[in-house]
């Protein structure tokens, strides 16, 4: 009996192949949701009416002026909803609200013959608002006691005693920013009632099933009357896990009411001002270390800024608490979490799902405390890494903890850290106005949905009589290469060439009740299901072949489109011939596959259990150069070793690691969400609502030298073909950039000084951090005036 992790000879998994749609991408012929509209006639375009208040009551809403605008067909309001007026799963997100909860909240939608008509119609809608007091910052919410959802605590041991008796005790408080997903493709839905009288919604969604459920409940239909298809997304990153449902519902409602196809495609301004983002956090911490710099205790309170509705804030916060240890053993832990309710967009899933925020807290602790302990930060981090036999604060054994130290050692060696440290020291000694530094940070990230029920998946696999294979599964493609991997899994399981496996678009009428493609779990879950389906068919085919070859079915071998027997040298048949024979023997050539992750349990009330199938490990070292005149910096070099198990698809996995890293570096250094927090007329308005004001990493932010290495001999038992998930964990490798910037800023000041660095560490933030160092240095040397450096003043 083979296990889930075993690979046959000549597997198609593990072979580096380009994205399955690469040729379509580069020729501009890969279609996205909004590309479909030119293939339809009489399409209506939707435009939202967005309120310019952070918090207000809608007293009156007059649509007649809009209907007078030429080309306006209909205005959708709460009165039009035949089912439930709600766009979420918590019933706290009215699709057409009577209370404006954030600046830009859509109160109704206008349908027009053209986008221009819909826009002019939206401008003509008359709304009377009664402004209400608002809470815009997390500090205001804490002050006002405005919280929502559960307030979990993860704890182990006796933290107060451990802190009281610790040799060294430090504390801090800081806030750090969220992140806009900025998928290049904004939210898009396109709905019509199709020839089979079902509501068909093309939607850029990571969670087609939930989109289907929300559309159904808004329309007052059953799920079997609504089909959601997601061909592909132009990026998701978590932003299309929970957020697309309302837009899909608007499109579907419009199409049902008008009998015409309806397109909802947010422009960038609408997307940024309407949709949720990565949660910003406030954190207060106190940490105790022993004489040798080993963490003894951590007490912390983390407050996420959830925005106006719960959305996914509760599971995001759970993952924060489950990752506040990152890769470090902390004997005594007491961490409280809570979710502020503010008048902002409803913050939501974003690659890492709260994990990065938890890890940012402990990496801040390490970075701030290392100089005070007199220990090199790299050494401090290494000293505190988990070792085998230890468990996380929530009680899960850290399996394969030894990989952390192995990766660390290999990384320092590959990246020539020792030699480069000397070069950096020499460089810094010679350059008063420019400083370099490098930092090493680890990642440990738990894989599985915290909520156990989501850890299941389905697939549908057809083998046709000519031997060609069509697969379908519940996962969605957002660029992460899931479909590429699934084709490789199917080709491996059936022993056929990759080219003979085609993948059909993700649709809720093919595979029902799917989980979101999220939590990095897409390949683990759907791969298990695809493999299961393929093996059902292969086992049936093996019996047909066994009869033909006169051998036991277990001895039939499927390799590269050829079917033969173990040890055979002159007898074989093609996979296509076998499929053809099987049909005539009335053997079923299709199967529904299913997978559920074994061994998970989680008690969300106690915050204890084993919620994760396994941990992903990695570490990175980044070297930066900071300009002392401006705080501007370059990322000179990054080296990464990351554990993806035995890679299903190395080119795809390296792409995920590099892309995740740069996205993480964007969050930590560049990407800055700024809301109007004044008491002026635009209070609550997002000031950075465009690509010109919200800056994503570009070529100038990528590491100038970028080396990524996949951890070797990394087979993960119990996961499809020995692989590991890859989507989220690499984002957190970017902590090395933030910590390197901290150390470079420190190099402008005296040694053994704890450097405060805002997050994101923009050039301005770095400038103030290094100026503070210069100020302290100047004060220190005041008694004995030394020749001033050129920029000290």
């Amino acid at each position, binding site marked *: 009996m083979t296990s889930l992790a075993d690979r046959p000879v000549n597997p198609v998994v593990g072979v580096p192949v380009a994205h399955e749609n690469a040729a379509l991408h580069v020729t501009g012929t890969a279609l996205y949701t909004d590309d479909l509209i030119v293939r339809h006639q009489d399409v209506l375009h939707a435009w939202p009416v967005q309120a310019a208040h952070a918090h207000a009551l809608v007293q009156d809403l007059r649509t007649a002026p809009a209907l007078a605008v030429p080309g306006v067909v209909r205005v959708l309001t709460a009165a039009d909803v035949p089912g439930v007026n709600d766009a979420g799963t918590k019933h706290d997100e009215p699709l057409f609200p009577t209370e404006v909860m954030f600046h830009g909240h859509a109160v109704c939608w206008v349908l027009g013959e053209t986008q221009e008509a819909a826009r002019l119609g939206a401008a003509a809608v008359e709304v009377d608002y009664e402004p209400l007091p608002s809470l815009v910052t997390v500090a205001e919410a804490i002050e006002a006691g405005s919280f929502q959802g559960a307030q979990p605590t993860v704890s182990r041991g006796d933290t107060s005693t451990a802190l009281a008796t610790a040799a060294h005790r430090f504390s801090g408080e800081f806030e750090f920013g969220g992140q806009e997903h*900025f998928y290049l493709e904004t939210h898009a839905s396109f709905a019509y009632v199709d020839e089979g009288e079902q509501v068909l919604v093309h939607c850029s969604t990571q969670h087609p099933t939930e989109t289907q459920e929300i559309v159904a409940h808004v329309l007052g239909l059953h799920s079997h009357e609504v089909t959601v298809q997601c061909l592909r997304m132009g990026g998701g990153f978590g932003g299309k896990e929970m957020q697309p449902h309302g837009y899909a519902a608007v499109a579907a409602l419009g199409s049902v009411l008008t009998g015409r196809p309806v397109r909802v495609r947010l422009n960038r*301004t609408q997307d940024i001002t309407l949709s949720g983002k990565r949660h910003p956090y406030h954190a207060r911490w106190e940490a105790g270390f022993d004489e040798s710099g080993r963490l003894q205790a951590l007490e912390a309170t983390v407050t996420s800024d959830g925005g106006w509705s719960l959305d996914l804030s509760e599971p995001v916060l759970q993952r924060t608490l489950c990752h506040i240890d990152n890769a470090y053993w902390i004997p005594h832990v007491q961490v409280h979490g809570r979710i502020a309710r503010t008048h902002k967009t409803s913050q939501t899933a974003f690659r890492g799902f709260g994990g990065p925020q938890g890890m940012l807290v402990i990496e801040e602790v390490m970075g701030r405390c290392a100089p005070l302990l007199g220990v090199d930060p790299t050494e401090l981090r290494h000293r505190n890494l988990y070792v085998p036999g230890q468990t996380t604060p929530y009680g899960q054994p850290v399996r394969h903890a030894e990989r952390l130290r192995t990766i660390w050692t290999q990384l320092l060696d590959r990246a020539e850290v020792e030699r480069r440290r000397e070069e950096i020291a020499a460089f810094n000694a010679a350059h008063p106005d420019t400083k370099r530094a490098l930092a090493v940070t680890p990642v440990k990230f738990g894989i599985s949905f915290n909520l156990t029920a989501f850890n299941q998946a389905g697939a549908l696999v057809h083998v046709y009589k000519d031997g060609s294979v069509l697969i379908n599964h519940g996962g969605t493609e957002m660029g992460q290469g899931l479909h590429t991997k699934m084709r490789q899994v199917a080709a491996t399981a059936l022993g056929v060439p990759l080219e003979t496996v085609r993948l059909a678009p993700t649709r809720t009428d093919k595979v029902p009740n799917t989980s979101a493609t999220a939590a990095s779990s897409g390949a683990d879950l759907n791969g298990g299901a695809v493999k299961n389906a393929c093996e059902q068919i292969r086992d049936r085919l093996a019996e047909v072949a066994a009869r033909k070859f006169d051998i036991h079915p277990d001895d039939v071998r499927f390799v590269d489109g050829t079917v033969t027997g173990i040890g055979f040298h002159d007898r074989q048949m093609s996979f296509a011939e076998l499929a053809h024979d099987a049909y005539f023997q009335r053997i079923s050539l299709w199967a529904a596959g299913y997978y559920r992750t074994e061994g998970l349990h989680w008690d969300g009330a106690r915050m204890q259990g084993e919620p994760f199938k396994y941990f992903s490990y990695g570490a990175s070292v980044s070297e930066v*150069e900071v300009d002392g005149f401006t705080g501007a910096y370059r990322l*000179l070099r990054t080296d990464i070793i990351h554990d993806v198990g035995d890679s299903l698809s190395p080119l795809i996995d390296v792409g995920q690691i590099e892309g995740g890293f740069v996205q993480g570096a964007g969050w930590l250094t560049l990407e800055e969400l700024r809301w109007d927090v004044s008491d002026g007329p635009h209070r609550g308005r997002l000031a950075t609502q*465009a690509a010109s004001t919200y800056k994503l990493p*570009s070529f100038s932010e990528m590491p100038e030298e970028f080396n990524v290495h996949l951890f070797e001999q990394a087979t993960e038992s119990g996961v499809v073909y020995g692989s590991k998930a890859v989507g989220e964990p690499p984002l957190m490798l970017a902590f090395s950039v933030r910590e390197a910037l901290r150390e470079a800023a420190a190099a402008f000041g005296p040694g053994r000084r704890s450097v405060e660095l805002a997050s994101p560490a923009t050039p301005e933030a770095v400038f103030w951090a290094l100026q503070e160092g210069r100020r302290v240095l100047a004060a220190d040397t005041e008694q004995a005036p030394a020749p001033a450096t050129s920029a000290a003043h």
Partner: protein
Amino acid sequence: MSDIRVTVNGRARDGAEVGPHTRLLDWLRGEGLTGAKEGCAEGECGACAVLVARPDGEGRSRWTSVNACLPPAAAFDGQEVVTAEGLGTAGGTGTPAALHPVQQEMAFRGGSQCGYCTPGFVCSMAAEYYRPEREAPGAATEAAAGAQTGTEVVGEEHAADHECGPNGFDLHALSGNLCRCTGYRPIRDAAYALGTPAEADPLLRRQDRPAQPAPPTRVAAGGAQFVRPGSLEELFEHLEDTPDAQLVAGSTDAGVGVNIQHARPPLTLAVDRLEQLRTLEVGQERVEIGAALSLSEVERGLAGRVPLLDQVFPQFASRLIRNAATFGGNLGTGSPIGDSAPALLALGASVVLASAGGEREVPLDEYYTGYRQSVRRPGEIIRAVRIPLPPARYSAFHKIAKRRFDDISSVAVGIAVHVEAGTVTSARIGLGGVAATPIRAHAPERILSGAPWNRDTVLAAAAALAGEGTPIDDHRASARYRSAMLEQALLKFWAQNALAPDMEVSR
């Protein structure tokens, strides 16, 4: 509504549906060419990039990458456009696979993940692939190393390596394209792996012939008009009737107004193809730059003649924008954060204003009168910019922004200093982002002028510079940081130039 005719991917298409405010992007997508995407509608992300054949000297043309989300489709009347679909075919049902070399490298090396930004990247990369000057690695590296980016004292050499491939590929060609998935490494690898176009490559050969001359165009619908006058006289006639008409060249700013602020000017006048606005004269005493030349054309035409501008170009928006944007437009919008004004102020530039009544020359430091206001009268246009020669030997352009490629300045500082025998003979400093208009920093200029070029002078001038303007707090930077950056700009300038040979005399 009047028809336009655009050749797209080798096939002439009539734009019967095109209105005066129909963007090129929307028209292409409506034609079924959905490869070009809207990612930001501001010319920031490049997902909409396409190629257009533009004039390139005598009898030649050049494949030029531009954003399709900003300019009106009508501006492309008579032009030849190529999209990602026109470069190659993916293969599949009924069509053979024939990827363009750029597409091949991007696909094979993992240059696409979600694929949404990819067609735009492919077009930007293809323009660089066909760039006639892209050649000999040695020469290319040298050129790049000479171009200071202005943000680093010691990192430039390193940066130059990073930003220029062994095949002469200038990474700045992709500075206007954003990817949220890959982290860029495979895209850079693809760019740096490109070879030389085959001799018979039809797009290469196309560059041997002139670009199609842009015909006079008029498109009207719904009470609005787009007009490309056939002559300067015709332009002035329109301006006499409609003094507040929207003038556009590359539409890189006006297009943002249309997309984001939903501006719908009743009359849009395209001046980009008027020959009188497309001159570039380098004389003994001055350079005159036509207001409608794209910044890329100016950059090539000046070929290093004004070193300060060579520091500006790589920091001015992106290649996609510079291929369309003009000095006339950047000065004409009057934005206090435009990057050209601080540099041109430092260079002592003037603008040539033209109207039906003739021309007049106004020093740039007398041009602006208030926020987006100037001495330009109704009916006048900016015809050219003049820069006196020789330029100051020591000059710098310091742009402070969050991102090094393609960002908007929080502060921009242009500095030009003449030093003779250890004494500053003239100093001009132009500032952007610290007042309602671009301004000159008179107080530090006065401190520098006539003073010995030494550290004490610089410290005094830097302190004065920190007090210039009335910087504000906003999402780009705090007022405190802006002021600090003014001071630091001069300190950095000193650090970069203190050791220059004839300055050393004064030490």
